[in-house]
């Protein structure tokens, strides 16, 4: 009887495991099936590198280059802000902070991770957007820069906690070795700890960026959503994610617009997948 129970439980767990793979596969197949139409009718090259996105004009123009550049611009900006601050924060927590401050900071970082993105979005909308507008004397503060700053907040917890973990798992003997050779604390961190933790830190950065690329709500609220080729970081942009979220509701099922939104989904999927795989490679290299 006990054995029978064991077998039942084992099978149930197996089914749970298979189900998650099965659903991922289904999602991907559905995405592919709906999106692939556009690659046929518009052409992959024209779709990816077309300069105008006018999905409801007649005939529709379905070039997503402005959206790709919008996503890249916002992401690059967020990375430029969050990587140095995040890694710096990780170094401080792992190597420098006294125990008490360390505890407080770690709790704070977790709290930051717990804020829903829509909340960050509206806080950004009422505080950051007007600030960007006045500081740079712009007609509107709804810009790629505002989006980048807000997304940097979202990437930071991921970067800090994983990078801190990577630094923490560097063997103590490296640190002792460097200090015993007369290295200062900073020299020890810069020349030994960071190189030793580099693959983990790179993974942290990749996962942080992955979070930024996939983020939708906050960017939709504060980047201005103009699907034009961005000329600087101080203009409104529209990201891939925001496009899907904003337009899916009004797209006619079965129309080219509808399929194009799925195709954008494929592009996003490919980008996120590539980032996650790269991060994974770095993490495993560490082991």
């Amino acid at each position, binding site marked *: 009887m006990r054995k029978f129970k064991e077998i039942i439980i084992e099978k149930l767990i197996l089914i749970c495991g298979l189900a998650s793979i099965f659903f991922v596969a289904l999602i991907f197949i559905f995405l592919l099936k709906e999106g692939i139409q556009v690659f046929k009718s518009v052409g992959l090259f024209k779709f990816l590198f077309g300069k105008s996105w006018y999905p409801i004009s007649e005939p529709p123009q379905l070039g997503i280059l402005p959206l790709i550049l919008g996503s890249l611009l916002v992401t690059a900006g967020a990375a430029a802000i969050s990587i140095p601050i995040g890694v710096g924060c990780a170094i401080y927590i792992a190597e420098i902070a006294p125990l008490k401050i360390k505890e407080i900071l770690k709790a704070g970082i977790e709290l930051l991770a717990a804020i829903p993105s829509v909340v960050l979005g509206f806080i950004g909308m009422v505080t950051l957007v007007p600030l960007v507008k006045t500081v740079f004397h712009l007609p509107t503060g709804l810009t790629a820069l505002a989006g980048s700053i807000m997304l940097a907040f979202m990437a930071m917890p991921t970067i800090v906690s994983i990078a801190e973990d990577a630094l923490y798992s560097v*063997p103590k*003997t*490296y640190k*002792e*070795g*460097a*200090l*015993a*050779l*007369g*290295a*200062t604390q900073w*020299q020890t961190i810069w*020349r*030994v700890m960071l*190189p*030793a933790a580099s693959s983990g830190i790179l993974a942290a950065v990749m996962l942080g960026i992955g979070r930024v690329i996939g983020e939708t709500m906050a960017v939709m609220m504060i980047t201005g959503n103009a699907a034009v080729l961005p000329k600087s970081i101080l203009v409104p942009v529209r990201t891939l994610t925001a496009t899907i979220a904003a337009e899916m509701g009004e797209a006619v099922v079965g129309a080219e617009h509808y399929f194009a939104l799925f195709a954008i989904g494929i592009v996003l999927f490919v980008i996120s997948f590539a980032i996650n795989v790269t991060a994974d490679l770095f993490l495993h290299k560490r082991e």
Partner: protein
Amino acid sequence: MTDKIITKNLDLWYGTFRALKNVNAGIAEHRITAVIGPSGCGKSTLLRVFNRMNDLIDGVRVTGEVLIDGADMLLPRTDLVTLRKKVGMVFQRPNPFPLSIYENIVFGERIHAGRITRDGLDEIVERSLKDVLLWDEIKDRLNEPALRLSLEQKQRLCIARLIAVRPDVLLMDEPCSTLDPQATARVEELMRELKNKYTIIIVTHNMQQAARVSDDTGFMLLGELIEFGRTEQVFTAPRDRRTEDYITGRYG
């Protein structure tokens, strides 16, 4: 024979635990001094006093004096960088950095020297590796990761990395405990060669090693330096009963 390091009434506390009790010793220059004793007797702690590595641990308090070349290095104004350049340490587990062999050896030069030339670095690498008798073995693999070396080679590399900084004193904390007997013999041979240039203090739980390699020996028990003298004397005619009990194998 002059004393390179002199400790006077040295006490060390980890919080409320007294790990070193009134240690008084004179470590002679250009000799190998072994510190032996059972686990937990404070021998590694004593070693770590000499380069202030205990500073890394919270709640450590040290009293007394430790004179190196006549200056008390326990004083707060002691510059740790200068001290650690002068008093280097080899650890129990070889700990080369996850960098290339070459970069491991020039690490000290990069952090200490103001101006660095490629030729200068090359020369340091060659000289240091020759000093630890590793040059012929690995001169063609200098850009390989140091972590790929064998354990013995790693430990030699750590010694090379240390002497590249030109210290006066080498502290060795059970440097052979992870090595096999042949490798141990070779590292001991190396120590005998190095003592012409350096003052060496080795902590070991291996009494045979202490007997083979050292000129002077100190025996520690429960934080006290029970006996300190010429190695032959400590091993053949110990003055203290407890030393005799230890070397005849009655503890740890």
